């Protein structure tokens, strides 16, 4: 029997009934009295000077209440790397220059969306088009157009990671491979587009409802841009229709809505259209990758070198972090004694690239796992075996970078090996490819420069024994409200239905970094657990006095029963203890506080998850088309708090990560995204979705709440690599350029035929 009464149970999400009855209210559904509707005018040019903006005609249109341009701003630039002012480079409403097709130049508020839309056509903007640059390899040339003045060779950020002696080690290798890859872009395609309702009151306070992954970031960035005190801004994240990395930077719904509301003293709602969502929000970072890998004959990996140039787009955004993480995760999940990474992020006149689920690691995993399979093939070693030989193990230190405590990679390899054996002999043109991966449970870096703890929670026990949890975590669909409620219930010894959670509201919840980098289960989980433990301590103090037991006995609460740990039958009702304890405190409600900031855990993350995935494909050699038959994943994420949630993360990641390998891309012509609609942007629909199988591995992470760690993003890392390796196994061709489309497979098959002849 499980030692837990709530953790590990198959439960309905705490907001499940609201979601299946359509009663969950998203920012998209918010309507306030006297509310106006806003629309944003965007640049049609990839690079141009703004000479003049004339808004007079638009302002005269009946129903239009206000127009704002860059002139109505304080002229500040913002960015999420607040610690480095030179990387805060985005104005949101451009004053003098636009840098990509979709850069905002003005916003209108009107009595309805149609009127606002009509008004956009009446705004006259005079541009002076400038030469533009779209490819990062072109952007770093001496004579390339300058995207931002004074940035040499358009190089926005560089990153270097190194340990061991890479050059010496390569000399000792029996075999060296050098390969080049290109990883494409990908759109987040959240079902709820970016949106915000801003309400500036006559009391000088601003309230913003927005679909966001971090209410605190939005609050702080708005305060910077509006020159307001952050506590005068309340940001509320209600139900959020997906995030996937796209919703924790200040965006072109939030800032213009706030500006218009402050100008008009009326609530203003802006909802981006699907086309704006594709063209003018952030996206996954495309990367050019060069990899050099050296091994001994027996498959021992001695050295790896990675060099990367990423397409930055017009602004820094979170792309700087993606540049760092792709470099770190290029070494994963293997023990390289010698490793070197050099990454360069180049500004281009394209839509800015930033965070997306996996955060640089889907790219590094695709290229690394593709190359590792080639290395195994060259050396005549089984792909599982080469991973087993070099894979990370518990208590491993990534030299000078990170400390890995729990690690179940080898158990995952065993399970996947058994799965492949069980599939037996495959039909012709079928292949199974494997890919191993790891990911972080929240980042340790603080480039945002928050003075607060990374995560914080307040727990209150009310007179009826019900428990309120307040946390700045944001539930964006991943189920953090459920997971955190389960942690609170387990720690306090109550049932899940006794807990009510309030999250993502800066007005009521303690500051918190929010949902990104797979941080909430571990970081917020620890904060909530500590806050609940604080409450429990207060209750048990009273219980000990009331029960009068010998002081050698430990007390605990389980399933609403306060009892002696060694004599569980001796106890009292939790509800009676709560009533008594509050009376004993002179009527003061039981409140607990908890926080979590990682310390002494290296530079990257306090804990890492691991896994191995096997993808099976069936290739039609006449057309190059292939079908994803089955994707089986052995994943370890420490103690499983919410099993239904983990299954959902796993299967959902396959839809998104499989799409990255299989079909998703954002082709451009002169900076214009050519497929800005769901009809044209191909993503995996139900008929393309493979059969999925999950093999859970038991591990325990000492740093995590009840032993838990991340299960959100790591799962997005392996699939593209597994598909690429499966295609090689099936038909012997290798595609180094994502996505692996039927055209590319067919072309490669033809080239292979020609070579044979």
């Amino acid at each position: 029997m499980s030692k837990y009464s709530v953790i590990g149970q198959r439960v309905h999400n705490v907001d499940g009934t609201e979601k299946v009855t359509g009663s969950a209210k998203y920012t998209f559904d918010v309507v306030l009295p006297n509310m106006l509707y806003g629309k944003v005018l965007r640049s049609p040019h990839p690079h141009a000077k703004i000479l003049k903006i004339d808004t007079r005609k638009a302002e005269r249109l009946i129903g239009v209440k206000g127009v704002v341009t860059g002139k109505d701003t304080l002229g500040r630039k913002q960015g999420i790397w607040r610690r480095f002012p030179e990387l805060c480079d985005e104005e949101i409403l451009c004053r003098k220059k636009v840098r990509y097709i979709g850069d905002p130049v003005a916003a209108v508020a009107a009595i309805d969306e149609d009127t606002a839309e009509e008004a956009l056509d009446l705004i006259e903007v005079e541009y002076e088009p400038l030469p533009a640059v779209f490819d990062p390899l072109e952007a770093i040339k001496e004579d390339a157009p300058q995207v931002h003045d004074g940035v040499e060779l358009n190089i926005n950020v560089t990153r270097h990671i190194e340990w061991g002696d890479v050059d010496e080690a390569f000399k000792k290798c029996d075999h060296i491979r050098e390969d080049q890859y290109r990883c494409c872009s990908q759109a987040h395609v959240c079902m709820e587009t970016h949106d915000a309702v801003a309400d500036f009151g006559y009391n000088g306070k601003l309230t913003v409802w927005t679909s966001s992954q971090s209410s605190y970031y939005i609050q702080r960035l708005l305060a910077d841009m509006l020159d307001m005190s952050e506590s005068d801004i309340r940001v509320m994240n209600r139900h959020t229709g997906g995030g996937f990395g796209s919703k924790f930077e200040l965006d072109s719904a939030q800032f213009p809505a706030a500006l218009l509301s402050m100008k008009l003293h009326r609530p203003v709602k802006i909802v981006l259209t699907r086309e704006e969502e594709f063209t003018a929000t952030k996206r996954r970072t495309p990367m050019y990758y060069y990899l050099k890998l050296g091994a001994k004959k027996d498959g021992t990996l001695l050295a790896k070198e990675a060099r990367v140039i990423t397409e930055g787009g017009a602004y820094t955004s979170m792309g700087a972090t993606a540049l760092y993480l792709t470099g770190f995760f290029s070494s994963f999940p293997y023990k390289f004694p010698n490793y070197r990474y050099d990454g360069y992020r180049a500004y281009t006149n394209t839509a800015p690239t930033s965070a997306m689920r996996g955060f640089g690691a889907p790219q590094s995993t695709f290229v690394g796992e593709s190359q590792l399979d080639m290395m195994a093939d060259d050396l005549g070693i089984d792909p599982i075996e080469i991973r087993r030989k070099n894979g990370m193990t518990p208590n491993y230190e990534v030299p000078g970078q990170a400390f890995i405590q729990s690690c179940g990679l080898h158990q995952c390899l065993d399970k996947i090996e058994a799965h492949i054996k069980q599939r037996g002999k495959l039909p012709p043109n079928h292949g199974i490819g494997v890919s191993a991966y790891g990911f972080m449970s929240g980042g340790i870096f603080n480039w945002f420069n928050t003075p607060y703890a990374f995560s914080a929670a307040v727990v209150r026990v009310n007179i009826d024994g019900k428990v309120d949890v307040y946390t700045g975590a944001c539930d964006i669909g991943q189920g953090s409200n459920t997971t955190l409620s389960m942690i609170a219930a387990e720690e306090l010894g109550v049932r899940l239905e006794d807990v009510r959670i309030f999250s993502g509201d800066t007005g009521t919840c303690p500051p918190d970094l929010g949902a990104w980098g797979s941080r909430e289960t571990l970081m917020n989980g620890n904060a909530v657990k500590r806050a609940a433990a604080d409450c429990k301590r207060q209750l048990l103090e009273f219980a000990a006095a009331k029960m009068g037991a010998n002081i050698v006995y430990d007390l605990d609460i389980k399933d609403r029963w306060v009892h002696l740990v060694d004599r569980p039958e001796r106890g009292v009702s939790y509800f009676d203890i709560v009533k008594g304890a509050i009376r004993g405190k002179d009527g003061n409600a039981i409140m607990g506080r908890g926080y979590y900031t990682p310390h002494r855990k290296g530079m990257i993350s306090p804990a890492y998850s691991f896994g191995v995935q096997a993808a099976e494909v069936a290739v039609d050699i006449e057309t190059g088309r292939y079908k994803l038959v089955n994707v089986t994943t052995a994943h370890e994420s420490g103690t499983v708090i919410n099993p239904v949630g983990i299954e959902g993360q796993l299967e959902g990641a396959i839809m998104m990560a499989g799409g990255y390998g299989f079909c998703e891309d954002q082709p451009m012509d002169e900076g214009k995204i050519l497929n800005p609609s769901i009809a044209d942007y191909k993503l995996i629909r139900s008929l393309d979705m493979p059969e999925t199988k999950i093999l859970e591995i038991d591990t325990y992470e000492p740093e995590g709440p009840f032993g838990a760690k991340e299960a959100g993003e790591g799962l997005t890392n392996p699939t593209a690599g597994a598909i690429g390796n499966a295609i090689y196994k099936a038909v012997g061709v290798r595609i180094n350029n994502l996505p692996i489309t039927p055209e590319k497979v067919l072309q490669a098959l033809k080239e292979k035929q020609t070579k044979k002849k």
Partner: protein
Amino acid sequence: MKKELKLTVNGQPYELYVNPKTLLVQVLRDYLGLTGTKRGCNSSSCGACTVVLNGMAVKSCSILALQADGAEVLTVEGLAQGTKLHPLQEAFLDHGAYQCGFCTSGMLMASRALLEENPKPTKEQIKEGIDGNICRCTGYNSIIRAVTAVVKGEYKEEKK
């Protein structure tokens, strides 16, 4: 020039005056306040706005409200009977067939229309039935399992 629109939504008759270019989804959400029906693209590609119109799954952003004149419309708000959830809703809960929830109403209504037309669909037919609906969170398989469970009779609808 506004025109008269008579339709029944979730059993409730309505008489409205609407602009001829108003979409059904706008009437449901903005006129009637039934915000359970979502809008993800406005180009009938994502399925978040799916409702059941005279028994058929229809993307409510793809038809004009006036085209629904005289029709019976069922939205997610009309799926439960009072406080008793519809079997599909129960099954979605048990199978975790939703995450962010933004596509869920559309998925439920597409599934509901499918089962009305074909109470015993195969797995492939269920996949076809929801192929017009995008879910970016779940990877569809939990939705397919939930609908399958209803087909198998694991969730009984109470007789009226």
